C-alpha cells in the first residue's frame, strides 16, 4: 500500500501579528482521504492556521507544500486552484443569488468566456444537492433560506469545485442531530473518494466521531497529532487547556427565592413555541441548545427586541409588554449579545465609551452636560473592579483581547444595576483564563448582588458548572429541565441532540 501523500503540509510555520506570536514553529499535515480534526481554544491559532493554509495571510517563517510540491507564495486563488477549500462560519455566500449559482460561483472565474446556461447549472445543482440528500430548489434565492440550509449550500459549493481538501470551520453549530449525521455520512463517502477534510469544532464528541486523527493547538503551538484511538474527550480537553476540566457544579442549591421573571407560553412563528419558565432572584438559569434552537430568539424577546406572537412576560409578578429593548432596559434587563464584535462592541471607539454607553444618563451634570472625564473616571473604576486588561480607558476597544472585550460588554450592563442579566454564549471566542473569570463574575453577580442570570450556552460542561438549573431547548421548544446534580454531561448532550 503506497504511503499516503499529504494533500497539504505546513512546515515550521511561524506567524506574528505585531508583538503577538499567533503560531510558533507549527507543523501540520493532512493526508489524502483523511478526516483531520483540529481543536483548540479560541486564541490558540486555529484560524490563523487556516488563513495560512488558504493563502489569506503569509507566514513569517516556514514552508507550504501542496501534494509534495513546495509553494513559494500561496494566494487564495492558488490555494483554490490546487483544491484547498474552506467553508467559513459566516458561509461567504451571495444572498441575492440562487442556490445553483452559489454552488457553481467559482466557475465564473474559470469559464470566463462562456455563456451561463441556467438549465444546465440547475440540473447539476440538483445532482450535488441530491448527493447530500438535501431537497432544495436550486432556483431559490439563498438569502431566503434558513441558516442551516445555507450552510448546506456552502458545503455543496466546496464539493462541487473538485476540492481535494475541504476545511470545515465549526460546521455543526446550527445543524440538528440528523443533519449532522447526514453530513458525516457524506464526509465519509467523499473520504472514500480520496478527499481530505479538516474538521474544526468545539464539539469534541463530534470531532472524535468523525476524525481519523486530531491535532491540538494551544497558544500557537502544535501540542500534537493523535490518532482517534488514543483519545478520549477528557484527554482532549486536557491537551487543549492544559488543565483538568471539572464539570463539578460551582453553585450550591438555592433556597426558595422569589420569582423575578416568568414567561408563559411564548410563541414566535418560525423561532420558538410554547416557551414557559421561571427565573428566581439570584438564580443562574442555563438555557442550552444548538444555534437555531430558539435560545437566542427567546432571549431577544425577553430583551424587547423581538415581540412574541403570543404569550406573556411577567416581571416580579406584573405583566409587561416591551415595545423596544429600551423598555426592557428600563425595567432592569440587560443583554450581552451572541455576536460580540458586531452586536456588542463599537470597535473603533474608546473603551470608556463602550463601557458607559448604557449609563450616560446618570453621568450628566445639572444642565445635561457630559464631560469626557466623567466617562473616563467611571470606566477606569470598572476596569479596576472587573479586572479588564486595557492599555488606557480611551484606547479603542479593538485593541483588547477577546476575553477583555467581553468583560467590557459585561461591565456596561453591570453598571446599569440590572435585575436580570441575559448572557448569550458569553464565553465564545474567549480564552481559557478569561472564561473562568467570566464564570466567577457571573457567580459573584448572582450571589452578592442578587442579580438573576439567564445563561445561554451550547457547551454542556459550562452550564453544569455555573447554573442552578438547566433548560434544554430543541427546535424551538423547551424539552427538559435539570438540576446539575441530576444529570451527567453525556446525558445532557443526548437530550440536546434528541
Amino acid at each position, binding site marked *: 500500500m503506497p504511503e499516503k501523500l499529504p494533500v497539504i503540509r505546513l512546515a515550521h510555520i511561524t506567524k506574528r501579528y505585531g508583538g503577538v506570536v499567533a503560531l510558533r514553529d507549527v507543523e501540520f499535515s493532512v493526508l489524502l482521504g483523511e478526516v483531520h480534526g483540529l481543536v483548540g481554544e479560541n486564541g490558540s491559532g486555529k484560524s490563523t492556521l487556516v488563513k495560512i493554509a488558504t493563502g489569506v495571510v503569509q507566514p513569517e517563517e516556514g514552508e507550504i507544500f501542496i501534494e509534495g510540491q513546495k509553494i513559494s507564495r500561496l494566494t487564495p486563488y492558488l490555494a483554490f486552484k490546487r483544491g484547498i477549500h474552506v467553508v467559513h462560519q459566516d458561509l461567504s455566500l451571495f444572498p441575492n443569488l440562487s442556490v445553483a449559482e452559489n454552488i457553481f460561483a467559482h466557475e465564473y472565474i474559470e469559464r470566463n468566456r462562456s455563456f451561463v446556461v441556467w438549465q444546465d447549472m440547475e440540473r447539476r445543482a440538483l445532482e450535488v444537492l441530491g448527493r447530500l440528500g438535501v431537497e432544495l430548489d436550486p432556483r431559490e434565492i439563498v438569502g431566503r433560506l434558513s441558516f442551516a440550509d445555507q450552510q448546506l449550500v456552502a458545503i455543496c459549493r466546496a464539493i462541487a469545485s473538485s476540492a481535494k481538501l475541504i476545511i470545515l470551520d465549526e460546521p455543526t453549530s446550527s445543524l440538528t442531530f440528523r443533519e449532522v449525521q447526514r453530513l458525516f455520512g457524506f464526509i465519509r463517502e467523499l473520504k472514500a473518494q480520496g478527499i481530505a477534510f479538516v474538521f474544526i469544532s468545539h464539539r469534541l464528541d463530534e470531532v472524535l466521531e468523525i476524525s481519523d486523527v486530531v491535532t491540538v493547538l494551544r497558544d500557537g503551538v502544535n501540542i500534537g497529532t493523535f490518532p482517534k484511538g488514543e483519545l478520549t474527550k477528557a484527554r482532549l480537553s486536557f491537551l487543549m487547556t492544559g488543565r483538568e476540566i471539572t464539570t463539578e457544579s460551582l453553585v450550591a442549591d438555592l433556597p426558595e427565592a422569589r420569582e423575578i421573571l416568568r414567561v408563559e407560553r411564548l410563541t414566535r412563528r418560525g423561532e420558538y413555541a410554547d416557551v414557559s419558565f421561571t427565573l428566581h432572584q439570584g438564580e443562574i438559569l442555563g438555557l442550552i441548545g444548538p444555534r437555531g434552537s430558539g435560545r437566542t430568539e427567546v432571549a431577544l424577546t425577553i430583551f424587547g*427586541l423581538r415581540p412574541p406572537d403570543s404569550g406573556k412576560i411577567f416581571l416580579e409578578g406584573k405583566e409587561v409588554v416591551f415595545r423596544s*429593548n*429600551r423598555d426592557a*432596559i428600563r425595567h432592569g434587563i440587560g*443583554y450581552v*449579545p451572541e455576536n460580540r464584535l*458586531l*452586536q*456588542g*462592541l*463599537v*470597535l*473603533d*471607539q474608546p473603551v470608556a*465609551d*463602550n463601557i*458607559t*454607553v*448604557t449609563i*450616560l*444618563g446618570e453621568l*450628566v451634570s445639572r444642565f*445635561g*452636560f*457630559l*464631560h*469626557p472625564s466623567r*466617562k473616563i473616571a467611571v470606566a477606569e473604576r470598572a476596569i479596576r473592579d472587573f479586572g479588564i486588561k486595557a*492599555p*488606557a*480607558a*480611551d*484606547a479603542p476597544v479593538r485593541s483588547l483581547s477577546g476575553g477583555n472585550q467581553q468583560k467590557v460588554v459585561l461591565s*456596561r450592563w453591570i453598571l446599569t444595576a440590572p435585575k436580570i442579566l441575559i448572557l448569550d454564549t458569553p464565553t465564545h471566542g474567549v480564552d481559557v483564563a478569561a472564561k473562568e473569570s467570566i464564570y466567577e463574575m457571573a457567580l459573584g453577580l448572582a450571589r452578592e448582588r442578587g442579580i438573576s442570570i439567564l445563561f445561554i450556552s451550547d457547551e454542556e460542561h459550562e452550564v453544569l458548572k455555573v447554573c442552578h438549573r438547566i433548560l434544554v431547548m430543541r427546535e424551538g421548544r423547551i424539552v427538559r429541565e435539570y438540576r446539575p446534580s441530576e444529570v451527567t454531561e453525556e446525558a445532557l448532550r443526548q437530550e440536546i441532540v434528541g
Partner: protein
Amino acid sequence: MKRPRGRRETQSLVLAAVVVFLLVLLGVLTRGRLLAPDSLQSIAFQLPLLGILTLAQMTPMLTGGIDLSIIATANLCGVVAAIAMTRGNVPPLGAMVFGLAMALSFGVFKGLLIAWVSVPAIIATLGFMIFIRGVSLVLTKGYVIAGFPGSFLFLGNGTLFGIPMPFVVFFLCAVFLFVLLARTRFGTYVYLLGSNPVATLFAGVNNGLVLFVTYLLSSFLAGVAGLVMIARFNAAQADYGEYYLLLTVLACVLGGVDPAGGFGRIPGVVVSVAVLQVVATGFNLLGLSSHLASALWGLILLGVIAINRMIGGVET
C-alpha cells in the same frame, strides 16, 4: 495613560503639511495679495458662510451619512424669510423664525425617512434637494428677491466689536455644535452610532432619535447659513451656491471627518474651513473661473483622499 501616535494623527500632520504648501504657493502666486488687509477682510466675511454650511454637513457625516440638501435648505430658508420681509412686511426677527421653521419642517420629514424608514441618506437627501429647490423656485418664480430692512442687513454686514457679524454667528454655531458633540450624551451617541449602529441598538441607544436629531440639526444650521447669506448679499434666490456642496464635504474630510462615520472633531473642521476659504480667495485673486476652481477642488479632494489612503495602509 498615553496612546501611541496613531494613523489618524499621522494623517493630520501630513494634511497640515499639504495645507501649508498650498498656502505658501498661493501666497507666492498672488504676490502677497492674499495676505493683504482687504483679502483678509473678505475672507472674514465669506468664510462664515462656508463654515456654517460645513458645520451643517458635519453631523450627518459623523453618523456615516451625508446631507446633500443643505444648500437647497439654506436657499429655501432665505427665500421664505425674504418673502416675509419684503411682501409680507414681517419684521426681520419674525421672518427669520419663519425661514428657520420652514427649514426645520423639511428637516423633520428628512429625519423621519432616514431615521425610521431607513431610506439611505444619500438618496433621501438627494430627493429632498430637488424637491426643496423646486419649492424655492415655485416661491420665487426664478426671480431674485431683494431689498431687506437695514436692521436685518446688519446680520450680514455689520460688525460686533470689530468682528464681522457673520463670523460671530459662525463662531456661535461652532461653539454650539462643539458642546453638543463633545459635552453631551447626544454627542457620544452620534460617534458610537456612526461607528457601529448595531451595537448601539443593542446597548439601548435610540438610534432612530439620534439620526432624526442629526438631520434636524443639519437642516437648522443650513437655515442659519441661509439667513446669513441673504443678509450678506441683500438678495435671496432659489439656487445660489450649489457648488458649495462639494466644498462642505471636502472641508469635513480635510478636517478629519471620516465619511464612513465615527470620527471628526470641531476644531479640525473649523481649521479646514479657514484653509479652504483662504484657498478659495486665492483662486479668486488669481482670476480663476468658477469652473476651474471647482475642477481644482475636485482634484484637491482626490489628492487628500489619496494621501490619507497611502498613510492608512490597511483600512479598518
